[in-house]
């Protein structure tokens, strides 16, 4: 009973072996001692004393403790290595570039430019269709006209017949084609930047 009380009250966590590698009975076994050395658990006064006693008795654990101390000293150097003198300059240059992209003054208007591009492409596409309809002799309008005539009583085919085949049609064709190409390039570049 006294043994159990000793185990569970005096020593926690309980040691199941209770024998050090040196073969002498201690209040701490090697496994518990290594755990204390390995992990940075805050040790109480009793635990610290017990560990100290164990290290005095067990050469293997003393060696582990010694290496642990040297490891800590070597890994946490007093003087930290410093980056080169250009480090900050290069960093702030990179940050400046980042900020230019991040706070681009055009950016708030980006949505407007986007919609304007879409509108321009749409108008140009309609113009292209219109030119093609003209050049095809109004067949599409003629087909639509046949559909709409019964409903509204308007002869849409006659509207096509009065559309002039002139030089300005060629201008509209070329202008709308140019708008479509430029608009598409702007749209691709904008989406790539976003």
């Amino acid at each position, binding site marked *: 009973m006294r043994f159990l009380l000793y185990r569970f009250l005096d020593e926690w966590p309980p040691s199941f072996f209770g024998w050090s590698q040196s073969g002498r009975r201690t209040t701490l076994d090697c496994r518990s001692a290594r755990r204390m050395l390995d*992990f940075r658990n805050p040790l109480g006064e009793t635990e610290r004393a017990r560990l100290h006693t164990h290290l005095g008795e067990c050469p293997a654990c*003393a060696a582990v403790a010694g*290496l*642990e101390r040297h490891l800590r000293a070597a*890994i946490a150097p007093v003087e930290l290595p*410093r980056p080169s003198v250009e*480090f*900050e300059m290069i960093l702030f240059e990179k940050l400046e570039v980042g900020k230019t992209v991040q706070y681009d003054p055009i950016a708030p208007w980006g949505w407007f430019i986007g919609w304007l591009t879409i509108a321009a492409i749409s108008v140009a596409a309609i113009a292209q269709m219109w030119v093609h309809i003209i050049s095809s002799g109004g067949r599409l309008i003629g087909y639509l006209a046949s559909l709409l005539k019964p409903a509204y009583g308007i002869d849409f085919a006659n509207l096509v017949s009065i559309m002039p085949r002139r030089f300005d049609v060629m201008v509209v064709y070329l202008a709308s084609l140019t708008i479509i190409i430029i608009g598409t390039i702007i749209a691709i570049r904008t989406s790539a930047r976003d």
Partner: protein
Amino acid sequence: MGVFDERQFLEDYRLHPESAFRQLMDAFRDRVYLLCLRAAGQRQPAEDLAQETFIRIWKGLAQFRGESSLATWIYHITWNVCASFIDKKSSAQGMPSVDDEDAEGREMDMNLSIYDANIKTFENRQFISTLLAKLPAPQQLVLTLFYLQELTYEEMSSVTGWPLGTVKATLHRAKDRMRALAFKELQIES
């Protein structure tokens, strides 16, 4: 590193972001750089990694909500930058990645006579640093976080994104491997 007042920094950042960021960089630059040096192994790529880390910190500061300490958050970003560097490097060179389980670490029975005979060698920081450089980069990073940054296991778990058990196991393996390497070196020397 002097005492860095996190609360003061956050107030300063609201008013003067750029000067506050410079303060933060002065406080953490060398530690972040050391972690990057452990991951990269050489100065130039380490500087690139540290710069990448600070760029991410600058971009992310506005979204920092204080759910963890600022230091933990900074080390978490550093860890991510270093981990992705190690992953890229390991996939290119067939080295262990940050998630690899390292089975080589094993308990090494230590002999006090070897330790006593070589205590001067152990006291030589260069000797330990050379051994450290032989560890896989993830283990070097974990050891550095543990000893240098003195993070708790919970903080290390937040930084690495690993479960607590994995953090402890990795740390344990890293130490075992250091011991094994130390004694192997000494046996070769003697």
